[in-house]
Each structure stands twice: as C-alpha cells, then as structure tokens.
C-alpha cells in the first residue's frame, strides 16, 4: 500500500497548491537557465551564422563584438589576394534607436556585402533575399515590420523584402539586414542642417589654411554635397572564408603579418564574446540561479517538514504497530519526490507557455531540462531530510 499517495489523496487541494508554488519556483530556476542560454545564443548568433573562418579587425582591437573596430573597406580586396582565401566580405554592424508608434525601437543594422552576400544564409520565413544594391532590407520578426512595409531610415526609405526569425543582436534587439553601403549610410546619416554647417566649416577651414590659398578651387568644392573623399568607407570588420582544405592557421598567420589589422579566428571571436561582454551576465545569472535553487530547497524543506508534522500521530501509530523505518522513510521520500516531480512538470509547461512572452529569448535545451531534473531530485532528497529526521525521532508512545 502506498501511504504517500493515500496521504496526498487525503489532502489533495493543499498538496496541489504547494506543488503549484514549487512549480513556479522551479519555473524561475528553469527560466534563469533559459535566459542564460538565450544570452549566449544571441551573442553568438552572428558569429555562428555568418560562418566566417577569420575575422579581420582594426589593429590591436578584439573585434566589433568587444569594442569599436574600424577598418577600410578596401581591406576586403587585399584579403582576396591572400592565398587560401575563398572570399572576403565587409562586416558592418551597429545599433540604432528610432521611434515607432510612439515607442522606442532598437534595430541592429547589419550590412551584407552585396553582391556576394544577398543574405542567403539568413533563415527567411517570409519574402525573399536582397535583390538590389540599395533600399531593401530583411528584418527580424521581433522588430514588428511587415513584408513590403516601407521604413524611413535617415534620408532614404527601405522596403522590407524578407522576414526572418530569431535573428537578434547581443543585446536582444532584432537585426535588420541591408547592403553594406546602405548600412553605412544609415550609420552616418546627418541632418540637412548638420551637412550645411559642415560645408560652412569646411570652407572656413580651407580659407584659414594655406591649402585654400594654393588651391582656390577647393573653396568652390566645399559647397558641393560631397567632397571627393580620399579615404574609402570604413567598416567594422572583414570576414574571411578560407578555401576548402586550406590551412586556416596559415592564412591567419599571413594576414597577421599586416601591421594595420588584427586577425581572430571564429573560435577566438566566440571566446572573446563569452569571456567578455557576456561573462558578467552569465555569472550574475548563474549566482542568481544558485540562490533560487537554495531558496527552493529551503521552501521545500519547510513544506515537507510541515507535512511530516501533520502526520506525527500517524507515524507514531505506524511505529507502534511495528512499521519498519523504511515504511516511514518511503512515505516522506515519496511525497518529496512526487512534490518535486509535479513541480517540475508544472514548471516545464508553465514555462513553455510564459517564456515566449519574455522580451528576450528564453532557450530551454534538453541538457538543461535533464540538469534541472537532477537538481529537483537532489532538492527533493535534501529537503526531505528535515522531515525524515523529525519522523525518525517520533516515539510510538506519542500515540497514547
């Protein structure tokens, strides 16, 4: 006869309410782990999806995910000439904040190296890849844009030609993919007044300097919309894919001989991300999770202890009629396991329902679920100890 089940049956509403409480707690533990996974996944998303073997960044910097990196776009052409390089693409990524329907909207502007990269690697859920050099964009669904919608950014308007899902930046903001040129244009968009002021400033600088007197034509050029630039456009990084069978380390070694750039492998970028910007959040969530586990264990201990106290008389009677300790141990342990198991199931299903409403991705992996199952098992065992201790100390004469 299973005494645990019969006791639960006897006080079912109370037991269910307790299980719901435990379930909510475990859901938060599960959520913390999911938030952590989401954080990692979001952080590594671009590094993983782009599929680059090497990241070429500004000299002595750790790349665009760790700090500001600016290198000339022309590096792309130099890299194509390196033996073992299959292709090189400019990488532009920055976050902008605009207002949409009265609410702030943060967008990660991601440049695609048109025409080589039209976004074929992006999982399109609706629409198509980029098919023009300008004014088209692929947007993550989380941004709330609809297919065909025209989005004004800076002086230009971009048409949403494709929608994707789960493509977010390090901060959890949705990514919008443009051509590199459009991404740069969005990044360096200045207002008309700022442009006019800059033209006036250019003219005064030219007047005050010797070069303005030597080349008076420059003063006329200062009023033009754009002075022919000597320097090429800058990008955050250039990503390189090596030829199949090529020795990536050797290619990296060749490029690292250049004094104007630094080279990082994809693994290196991943590690820099994990050990850098994500690390503190990871540790914070980890500690919070550990605290929650401890709190859950304490609460479960108290609940199980109270459940045991309610049964003291019955336990004394069982001892009096000769029940082995294993019968009483089984009663408490099984209740702890049922409570933990029920809490776990409730946590799983309530989390499955609630987590999609979280502003950032909450990713629950199979490994995390297994890990949590073991944690729940351990909590159930540990928390039943208090009740077991009490039950073992009960004397049969307490019946009298």
């Amino acid at each position: 006869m299973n005494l645990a089940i019969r006791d639960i049956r006897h006080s079912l509403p109370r037991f269910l309410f307790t299980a719901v409480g435990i379930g909510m707690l475990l859901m938060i533990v599960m959520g913390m782990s999911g938030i952590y996974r989401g954080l990692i996944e979001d952080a590594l998303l671009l590094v993983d999806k782009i599929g680059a073997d090497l990241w070429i960044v500004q000299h002595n910097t750790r790349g665009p995910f760790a700090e500001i990196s600016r290198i000339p776009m022309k590096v792309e052409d130099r890299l194509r000439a390196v033996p073992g390089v299959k292709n090189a693409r400019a990488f532009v990524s920055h976050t902008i904040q605009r207002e949409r329907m009265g609410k702030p909207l943060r967008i990660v502007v991601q440049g695609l190296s048109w025409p080589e990269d039209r976004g074929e690697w992006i999982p399109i859920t609706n629409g198509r890849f980029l098919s023009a050099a300008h004014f088209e964009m692929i947007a993550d669904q989380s941004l709330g844009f609809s297919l065909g919608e025209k989005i004004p950014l800076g002086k230009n308007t971009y048409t949403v030609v494709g929608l994707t899902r789960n493509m977010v930046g390090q901060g959890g903001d949705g990514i919008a993919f443009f051509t590199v040129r459009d991404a740069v244009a969005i990044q360096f968009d200045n207002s008309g007044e700022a442009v006019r002021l800059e033209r006036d400033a250019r003219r005064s600088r030219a007047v005050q300097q010797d070069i303005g007197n030597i080349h008076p034509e420059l003063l006329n050029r200062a009023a033009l919309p754009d002075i022919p630039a000597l320097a090429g456009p800058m990008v955050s990084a250039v990503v390189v894919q090596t030829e199949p069978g090529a020795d990536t380390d050797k290619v990296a070694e060749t490029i690292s001989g250049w004094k104007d750039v630094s080279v990082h492998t994809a693994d290196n970028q991943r590690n820099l991300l994990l050990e850098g910007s994500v690390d503190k959040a990871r540790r914070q969530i980890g500690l919070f999770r550990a605290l929650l586990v401890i709190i859950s264990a304490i609460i479960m201990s108290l609940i199980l202890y109270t459940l045991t106290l309610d049964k003291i008389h019955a336990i004394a009677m069982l001892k009096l009629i000769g029940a082995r300790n294993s019968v009483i141990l089984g009663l408490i342990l099984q209740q702890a396991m049922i409570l933990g198991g029920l809490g776990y199931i409730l946590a799983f299903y309530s989390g499955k329902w609630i987590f999609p409403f979280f502003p950032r991705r909450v990713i629950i992996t199979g490994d995390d679920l297994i890990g949590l199952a073991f944690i729940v098992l351990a909590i159930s065992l540990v928390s039943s100890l208090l009740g077991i201790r009490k039950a073992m100390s009960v004397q049969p004469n307490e019946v009298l």
Partner: protein
Amino acid sequence: MSEKTPEAAIEASNISKIYGSGNTEVKAMVDVSFTISKGEVVGLLGPSGSGKSTLLTAIGLINPPTSGQIRIGRELVMDGPAAKVDVRKFRREHIGYVFQKANLIPFLTALENVQIALEINDVPHKEARERAIALFEYLGIEERKDNLPHMLSGGQQQRVAVARALANKPGLLLADEPTAALDSFRGRQVMELFQKVAHEQGAGVLVVTHDHRSLDVFDRTFEMEDGKLKK
C-alpha cells in the same frame, strides 16, 4: 494424571518503572510480577494514576521498564531497559493494541487501516485485503470499509481499531480502556470479542478497564494501586 501447566502468553518478573532521580524520582510501577496464560482474558483494574497504563506500555514494548524481565511466549524480550529482541518486529508479529481512542490513521480508509497492519507484516496486498474484509464482516462494519475515519462513529472507529489489533493474530492482546468510547452494548460486544479471540486463537488478553459491567468476561483480574499489583 498430572495437570498440564498452561503455556504463558506473557510473564513479567519484578518489573519497575521509575521516572527521574533523586528528589524528582517517581516510582510509577514497583516490582510487578504476573503471568497471563494463552487463552486467558485478564482484567487490570485500579484508580487513575495507579500505574495501569505504565504496566501496559511496558509489557507492550512501547515504554521499557527500568528493571525486571518480560517474557512473551517463551522468549525473553526485555531485561531491564534493554530489549533482547527487535521490539518493532516483535510488536508487529506478536502484539495487538487497542486504546481508549481508536488512533486510526486519518488518511487511510477504515479497511486500509487494517490492511496496513497486515502489509507491514509482509502479508501480500491481496491477502491482506481479503483478511481485513473478513475481519470487517466478523465485526459487522463491512459497509463502512471505504469510509475515512472521520466519517465513522466512535464505536465504528473502535471496532476498526479492534480489527487492526487482531489482524496479525497476535499472541498477546493489550487493551487500554477499549470500551470507554462505546455504549454499553458495543462495549460488551468488544469485551466478548476479546474473550472469543483469547479462546479461539489462544491469545493472552490484558484489558485495562474501569468498566465493572464487563468483569464477568475476565478469567482473572488484577488490581493496581500506587504502582503495585494487588492480586
């Protein structure tokens, strides 16, 4: 032809129970010796505080004596406060208890309260159920077998407690004021049941009681006063 001495169900030799020490010492039971034979129903009378319950819990292996020896069947089970057997095992196999209050386990049905006593004594579930139902029929409470204890009257609860005490066919049945919660008819019925168990199963029965209406049921009576046994 020599008369055969009946086999003892229990034999207590000079058992005493002393609580505290020095100025706070209380002698709850002093040098009590007696024997109850198998098949014998013995009444234990005496005023409140005379040590009846102390004696009952001592020989019931619930509260060990300070000194003296207790034999149940032929086995020495207590030598002073030291147990000579696994008392819990011994209790479930050889002793049945009925108290003034039924002390039923509240989360088990009436039938399960009896079944559990059998199952913890390694009787298979199905057999335990059948034996419990047979006891319920015998005690006339089979229609209440699926009720929880709080749904039963005091008399019904006490009969379930009696069924539980009898479930494992104990060699020794100890009852402490078993009829206190029952009306005279039910009280008489329970006492006669004890008599029947003693005679049919050959169990030794010791009943602590204040109820003088059932004295005729007892083969012998003991009286306790100030912790001592007056025969």
